[in-house]
């Protein structure tokens, strides 16, 4: 079996039809981290959202090798094997932290399958991909303890402080196992001790054969991580392969005809 890796081939990312950044070429193998750096507005979040499957790539491809999804089949999309942590938490403020996490655990861990079913699949996957036999999914309270918030399961998410909310939402990474973590500014609002703790968490994930792709301004403490630097681009200059030519008369006429 091939060692797991993610290959980016000439990936151009953008919003709508306008290219924002790229083309990117990179190979990220199991146990490696890719840190995406660059000034504000350079396209870090756009790249990560494209990797997570939330935006279509404008050109190029994301290829996966040796990564198996929740069902044990080889994964086609990176989103099937990845956790995406964005700027927003994805947690409901009305219900408790524990309920939020157990929902994500059940939903992401293969919806509509019971716990025993899932652990069987976990076992099967671990056997298939020995390189990725990572930590099995933790229960919500164990995950909260791992991010330094023990005993807050029953508190509504909305009552937590900004940093606690961030840590609780990072606990989602470990309630359902995914070999790839896509992290967009994961340490914003975290204090120094929590950043260190999170860096340990990421290091543990990498140590068990996982892959992390992170955009960050803070050093994550990831020694030996590959760095992908995105330069700020002049938004007025059209990049290579940019189909953002202004609308001409013919386009307008055809649009009016359609209406």
């Amino acid at each position, binding site marked *: 079996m091939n060692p797991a890796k993610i290959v980016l081939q000439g990936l151009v990312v953008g919003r709508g039809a306008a290219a924002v950044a790229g083309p990117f070429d990179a190979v990220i193998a199991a146990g490696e981290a890719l840190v995406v750096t660059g000034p504000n507005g350079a396209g870090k979040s756009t790249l990560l959202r494209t990797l997570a*499957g939330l935006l279509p790539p404008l050109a190029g491809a994301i290829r996966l090798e040796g990564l198996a999804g929740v069902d044990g089949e080889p994964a086609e999309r990176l989103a099937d094997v*990845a956790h995406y942590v964005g700027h927003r*938490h*994805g947690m*409901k403020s009305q219900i408790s932290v524990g*309920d939020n996490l157990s929902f994500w655990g059940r939903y992401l861990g*293969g*919806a*509509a399958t019971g716990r025993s079913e899932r652990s069987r699949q976990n076992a099967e996957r671990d056997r298939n991909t020995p390189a990725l036999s990572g930590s099995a999914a933790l229960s919500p309270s164990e995950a909260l303890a791992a991010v330094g918030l023990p005993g807050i399961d029953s508190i509504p998410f909305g009552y937590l402080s900004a940093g606690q909310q961030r840590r609780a939402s990072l606990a989602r990474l470990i309630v359902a196992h995914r070999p790839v973590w896509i992290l967009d500014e994961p340490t914003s609002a975290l204090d120094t001790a929590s950043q260190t703790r999170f860096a340990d968490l990421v290091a543990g994930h990498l140590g068990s054969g996982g892959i992390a792709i992170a955009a960050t301004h803070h050093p994550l403490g990831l020694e030996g991580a590959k760095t992908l630097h995105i330069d700020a681009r002049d938004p007025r200059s059209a990049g290579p392969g940019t189909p953002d030519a202004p609308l001409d008369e013919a386009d307008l006429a055809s649009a009016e005809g359609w209406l």
Partner: protein
Amino acid sequence: MIALFLRDMRLAFAGGGGATTGVIFFLAVIATIPFGVGPDLNLLSRIGPAILWIGALLSTLLTLDRLFQADRDDGTLDLLIAGPLPMPLVVLSKCLALWTASSLPLVLASPVLGLFLALQPAALLAVMATLFVGTPAIVCIGAVGAAVAVALPRGGLLVSVLVLPLAIPVLIFGVSATYAAVNEPDPFWPPFMILCALTLFFGALGPVAAGAALRGGGD
């Protein structure tokens, strides 16, 4: 899918979930009509089924605009789109949860409120039956509107405007089936069956269309 359904049900009944808004709006509309129309029982019982249906339609639309917007605001929608469940099933389970939390209470309340409008017993049952099979269609149509307007800050009005024309056939056949139950010799079953067909049609089409709209609207 079951996990998503259960979570949405919880949220609907947790604080600020808004499941009861629709029922209270329904109650307010139906309870004020007799005062506005006056004590003419014949007139009330003649327009009663239509009033109940219009009230149910409007109060369902009232609850629709938050169907996806709350999830979008806190980032849950991103994770649902990237998650393992296909988008049409995500939309379907959210619609099921919304219907159970906000439309099923309308259906259950409709016979009681029908008494306010001097409906005959047969009409009470007919209204309940037609609302039961008709409201899922309204929710599924509305899901498409809610998905299209998800990125707009005040999309609620736009959702209503988008959705109302599509919901008109449901209203027509729902009301005509109800009238047919009390007015001999109109047949009850043909309009009722068309209503069922509309629900099945929109139940199949709505989630697919709403899923595509949500996926395409990602930013």
